[in-house]
């Protein structure tokens, strides 16, 4: 087969330009470090690398959300622990106030301390996390009817704020189930205790009235269900501090009540810790009768106990959630490393192999150049005279 001059030159130029294109491509790859730079380099790997990149972004995002959640929960834990300390110190002070030796001056001083404690708790209710958001609810939660917990994470799996109303406001009063009170028109010096639940299966939510009667020598009591109007007990013998059991609820009336004095039992409404503290302050600053003082003191102490319960529960909850977030964050960190490695395996160039390939391409390119230079230099015309 003849290889005419022009064709020989064409073929050589074509193969030279192909080599050069190949070298340029290899150089490009080495410079970028990527085996798959454009989708056409490896379409399936390009698609998989894109999904890996997206997954990596999502993991980073989850870790950010986890960081926000754990910051909020830590702030909540700190606020609650301080709150528990404040409440416990107030509780102790009130126990001391029950000591009969306190006079008006001491009570006034105590009231000032309680005011300080109340302000502390108000401040804690507005505690914020490192991002500046309220730990116990969004701004204005105190006047809203509810403060739903804020959740973070892609499926809302982590707690990022606590329900402030459940911790500070919607606290059960009394013993948590029912409250007791003396009627204001009572003439005597009797008082009724906070009461306990002895048989929860017999509880109703009805209101009850205990009416004392009889004579100072043979006092009696009657029990009326004020909701249904039924009389449960009539003119039973009574003595101070005798336990009276009414539909599963047990109360004691002590002191020296007069005949005709009434004492009521009712379902426990909710009362905020601030109101409880306010009650204590009013009790200390006012001048109630000893009986009323004793009763009021018991009420406030019960209220503080409920508040301590709520704070403790919230703190446990925050702690548990914090542990959960921490464990999830560790798993996410591992996931990030794995995703990065996966993406790299799809996209990145094996640098050693690529450099070797490039060098051999260079060598063969040089060889082709030299052979052309030698072969094409001579033609018959050079040799003819």
């Amino acid at each position: 087969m003849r290889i005419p001059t022009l064709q020989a030159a064409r073929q050589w130029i074509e193969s030279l330009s192909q080599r050069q294109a190949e070298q340029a491509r290899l150089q490009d790859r080495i410079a970028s470090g990527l085996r798959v730079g454009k989708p056409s380099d490896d379409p399936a790997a390009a698609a998989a690398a894109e999904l890996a990149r997206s997954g990596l972004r999502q993991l980073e995002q989850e870790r950010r959300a986890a960081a926000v959640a754990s910051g909020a929960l830590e702030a909540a834990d700190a606020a609650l622990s301080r709150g528990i300390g404040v409440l416990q110190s107030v509780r102790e002070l009130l126990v001391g106030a029950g000591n009969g030796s306190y006079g008006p001056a001491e009570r006034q001083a105590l009231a000032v301390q309680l005011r300080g404690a109340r302000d502390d708790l108000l401040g804690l209710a507005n505690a914020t996390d490192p991002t500046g958001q309220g730990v116990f609810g969004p701004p204005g939660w105190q006047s809203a009817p509810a403060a739903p917990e804020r959740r973070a994470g892609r499926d809302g799996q982590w707690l990022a704020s606590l329900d402030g109303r459940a911790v500070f406001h919607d606290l059960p009063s009394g013993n948590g189930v029912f409250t007791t009170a003396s009627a204001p028109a009572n003439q005597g010096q009797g008082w009724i205790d906070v009461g306990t639940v002895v048989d929860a299966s017999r509880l109703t939510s009805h209101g009850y009235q205990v009416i004392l009667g009889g004579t100072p020598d043979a006092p009696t009591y009657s029990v009326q269900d004020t909701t249904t109007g039924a009389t449960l007990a009539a003119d039973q013998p009574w003595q101070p501090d005798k336990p009276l059991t009414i539909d599963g609820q047990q109360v004691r009336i002590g002191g020296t009540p007069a005949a005709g004095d009434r004492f009521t039992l009712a379902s426990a409404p909710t009362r905020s810790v601030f109101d409880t503290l306010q009650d204590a302050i009013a009790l200390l600053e006012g001048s109630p009768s000893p009986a009323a003082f004793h009763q009021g003191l018991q009420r406030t102490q019960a209220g503080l106990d409920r508040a301590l319960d709520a704070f403790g529960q919230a703190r446990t909850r925050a702690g548990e959630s914090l542990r959960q977030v921490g464990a999830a964050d560790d798993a996410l960190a591992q996931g990030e490393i794995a995703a990065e490695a996966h993406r790299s395996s799809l996209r990145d160039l094996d640098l050693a192999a690529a450099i070797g390939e490039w060098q051999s391409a260079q060598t063969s390119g040089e060889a082709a150049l030299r052979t052309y230079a030698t072969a094409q230099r001579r033609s018959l015309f050079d040799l003819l005279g």
Partner: protein
Amino acid sequence: MADVLLNIGSRGLAASHAALATVSHNVANASTPGYSRQEAVLASAGGAFEGGRFFGRGVEVAEVRRSYDRFLAAAVQSAASASAADAARADGLQQLDALFADADLGLGAALDDITGAAADLASHPADGAARQVFLARAAQFADRVRTFGRQVEAMTRQADARLANDARSVNQHVETVRSLNAVIAARSTEAAPNDLLDARDAAVQSLQALMAVQVLREPGGGYTLLAASGQPLLVGPRAYQLEAAQDPADPSRLALRLAGDTGARWLDAADLGGGRLAGTLTLRDQDLAAAGDALGRLAAATAQAFNAAHAQGVDAAGAAGQPLFEVPAPAVRGHAENRGAAAVGVAVTDALQWRASAYDVSWDGTEWSVCRLSDGQVRTGALPLAVDGFSFSVAGSPQAGDRWRVQPFAAAATGLAARPLDASQVAAGAPGAPVPAGDNRNALALAKVANGVLLDGGSLPQAWAGLLAEVGHRTQAAEAAADVSRRLQSDAQSRQQALAGVDLDEEAADLLRHQQVYQACARIVQASQSLFEALLSATGR
């Protein structure tokens, strides 16, 4: 007797001279592309009957023959046609491929940014800055979609410009062949005008690179040119014009129209058969259209999903969320030759079933057909008809043969916009939240939108990755095809050149040979001269 010698000698000189001239012509044109090697074919001048014997009368140049085989030439031309088509398509696809090269500038990254901003919003729902960032990321997504859409649109415009240019070049080449036909026909009665024939073949070769033509040889020596599907381009003295005019089905782009005796005819890539025009048409109508539709579909699906999720929530003031994105409506264009008075409408019914395609709706007099252009599938029936998540309807009375082009997604790729919302209008909270500004439940929902099942049974990031893979596959396939056809072209050229190419060494050898014959014939003339002188000296005084 001496004059016989002189005659033979001078004839020999003339013949050798002619052969030398031919060899020189070859040498001079050794690097001329399209040149076919010429050879002076020498033949004996026959014999004269003299004195009872035949005596030879020397040599003459029978013809100057062109080394040409029309089958080899035809093979080179058709290989060049295929190679030009594949190269045009591969070049265009490489440009498209480069558009999708940087992962951090892609739609997948922009989508991740929106999701990230929504998740950050869920972490800080009361923070105005977080809301602002969310809106900014939505705007950035819309910007990026428009960038991609406009780049694809620009490539389509470039393709249209190339069509117009190449159509003009086709006409010029056909005109060249026509004028050469005339000249060759005039000269062919005497001898083959080799260089004119080479020039005409070169013109046909250039034409083949633009569109595949069938070449028929007329008895008079002229060429008749037909398009691959049989339409005449050049018949005798009559040349038919090819032009790029507004496509009647879609006024925003060009189509090729070939003039004819019975009216103009629109040519598509199959009619062209090959050449750069066919490659450009395939690139524009299949590859770029598919890319534009896929981008538009992704944009429209994203916008729709986010708008729906946003509407489920309440903003900082407690009002329901307004749409985040403005999506252009599907475009419906009636064919320019429609004669009826009907209008086709299209409405979205179910985004989950969307396919990345445009549609042709046509009425044949008895029933409607909706053809999906990406794969050619047709659904027939009565309108309103639900196809691929759209409902096609008609108002008015059409005539048989009327057709409409429906492009649901082309405008979305170039026209998606984020609505100008205020930071307080971001609907991060769930309805019924006691403090709407601090609730984050809808923000959590917004962060999950992109990963829901939305397109082709997968999520938005999966649809984007699928688009990347599709572009990559097409480009790889086109590059491979271009590579193969380039090799075939090179191969065909080698074979043709093996016959018709000039080998300088061969010409040098011929030069030497003819020089020697020339010198020898000069000696014959010298010999006849000395014979004559001998005769003169013998007879004269």
